[in-house]
């Protein structure tokens, strides 16, 4: 799909984010990858109950967009955005506890895999019904607007999700009330096995923006700085009261939909093309070229990441199984 407006390549860019922000993004991209790689191992060891999804290759979208938020902002992520959860305060231990269905996970074993969140940390837990978070994200932004708070809600969804009525109604509601919502489309070219031409006949998803009277921008979803720049602009715009922006981030889902999916329906050539464009490797290369990622910093970060994963997993394994006697508890809040 041809993009409406490719964001300028980094070299052409005047300024760039400060080094600590650059390293923060890299750190969370690496952390997502490290957790998910460990998760895949656990999955094949049969230790993760149910389906297991990864955001392999999507790390630049989650990290680049989330890095544009301020401390009081809110997120409504989906199932490929682990970095977003981590950057907003979900711990590595909680993530593994969620994977392992333990009491220590955000849903305490009630829901599985990445179906988690924590409203107290400003993270809306998504439900399986695709795009159901979009109108809810609009409502979170509505509350901010009603109370005169200058907070922004960042929400993520897939290419398949754009076909749902929930997505349409939620985006339209946010647009009509000019709510502070940033709409990040993770166009990874597939919805499970379904290719783009079964989701839309449009030239590009970003073309949908005009129908809602909001700006739309398409960026390379494997270029974390392109994502970050677009998101930062959209966040600023939302905070100024100018309403939502649609950001189409283009990537490819380079693994199966879930680990149970052998994804033979994805052309080999396409996989190779995108495998060669790994967002983490590309970012590392760039940061080295800029002298931001020296050998020592790199080394320290890798050690820390590996340590966090092992400590987190240990924490999760130490977390108890939920008490079956409590199965019926918590359906209702007590007055």
């Amino acid at each position, binding site marked *: 799909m041809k993009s409406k407006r490719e964001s300028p390549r980094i070299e052409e860019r005047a300024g760039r984010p400060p080094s600590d922000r650059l390293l923060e993004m890299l750190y969370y991209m690496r952390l997502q990858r490290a957790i998910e790689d460990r998760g895949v191992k656990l999955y094949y060891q049969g230790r993760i109950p149910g389906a297991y999804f990864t955001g392999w290759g999507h790390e630049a979208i989650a990290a680049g967009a989330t890095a544009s938020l301020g401390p009081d902002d809110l997120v409504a992520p989906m199932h490929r955005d682990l970095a977003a959860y981590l950057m907003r305060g979900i711990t590595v231990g909680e993530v593994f506890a969620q994977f392992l269905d333990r009491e220590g996970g955000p849903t305490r074993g009630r829901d599985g895999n990445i179906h988690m969140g924590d409203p107290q940390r400003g993270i809306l837990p998504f439900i399986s019904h695709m795009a159901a978070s979009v109108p809810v994200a609009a*409502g979170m932004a509505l509350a*901010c607007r*009603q109370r005169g708070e200058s907070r922004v809600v960042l929400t993520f969804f897939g290419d398949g999700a754009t076909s749902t009525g929930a997505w349409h109604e939620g985006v339209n509601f946010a647009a009509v009330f000019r709510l502070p919502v940033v709409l990040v489309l993770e166009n990874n070219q597939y919805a499970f096995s379904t290719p783009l031409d079964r989701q839309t006949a449009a030239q590009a998803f970003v073309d949908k923006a005009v129908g809602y009277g909001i700006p739309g921008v398409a960026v390379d979803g494997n270029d974390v700085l392109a994502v970050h720049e677009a998101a930062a602009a959209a966040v600023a715009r939302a905070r100024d009261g100018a309403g939502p922006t649609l950001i189409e981030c283009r990537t490819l889902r380079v693994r199966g939909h879930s680990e149970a999916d052998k994804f033979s329906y994805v052309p080999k050539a396409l996989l190779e093309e995108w495998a060669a464009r790994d967002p983490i490797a590309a970012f590392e290369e760039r940061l080295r070229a800029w002298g931001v990622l020296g050998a020592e910093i790199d080394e320290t970060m890798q050690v820390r990441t590996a340590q966090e994963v092992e400590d987190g997993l240990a924490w999760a394994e130490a977390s108890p199984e939920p008490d079956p006697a409590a199965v019926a508890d918590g*359906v209702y*809040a007590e007055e």
Partner: protein
Amino acid sequence: MAQLTYLEAIREGLRGEMRRDPRVFVLGEDIGVYGGAFKITEGFLDEFGPWRVIDAPLAETANVGAGIGAAVMGMRPVVEMQFADFVTDAFTQVVNMAAKYHWRTRMPLPLVLRMPYGGDVKGGPFHSQCMEAWFAHTPGLKVVAPAFAEDAKGLLVAAIRDPNPVMYFEHKHLYRFRREEVPEGDYATPIGRARLVREGTALSVISYGWMLHKCLEAAGLAAADGIAPEVLDLRTLAPLDRDAILGSVRKTGKALIVHEASRTGGIGGEIAALIAEEAFESLDGPVVRLASEDSPVPHNTGLEAAFQPTVAEIADAMRRLAAY
């Protein structure tokens, strides 16, 4: 005590909560400038302004979803369905997003959905439905359905203050049914408690909403024949007031359940099952249900009259059961 219609009582309860608590706001189609299809929120826009009285797009999933999002942030939204029938366009938000929210997060979700429901308004199959049973079968939701103006106000206040999503079923036929005594000021009718409307010994008549009034009328006819029916107004459908239901049936030994929703799969089944399991030893007769036909709601007046239980049918059922 003021003399108010059921509709005025809803308005008073809603306005009172909006005055008391700045977190409370209303959102729905045509509720602001127009004051709502049934004029419940008439004058609200002027009093509370456009960010607390929100004229929304024609989009139930967006409107309910927005309400959920605001509730997540600690607001207390009251979202109006123009007719309860249209909630099917927001079903995922209600039964999956809202209903399961506290169970997954242990955080409150104080959302009220106002559901103008029921027949006798010449609305036909898409403006008359009674779908309370769908929601009573959805753990995480509370369901209330007042029959009297006093409870219409008190239960709406309670629903707004409740930390859970509450489906508030307001019966369109009762809006302008008559004037009743309604206490002034600030009170809440507890959710989950039935009301004993008429004491009796011969049988327990269990109903709610419009049919409750038909039951009272029928009880008058039965009384004329020397039968003393006890009439229980459930008021809340989820959670059911088990003690009130079982207590009454254990006393009278007989149960007649009446509702406007179609018979098969309606709330009446749950109530009858509760009685047949927990009050079996007290039963002196079959548990009888009277409900509307298993069909959509017809538009034609004669058809709709035939569709619903009539006062005469209810009175006959009382006589038959009493004589059993």
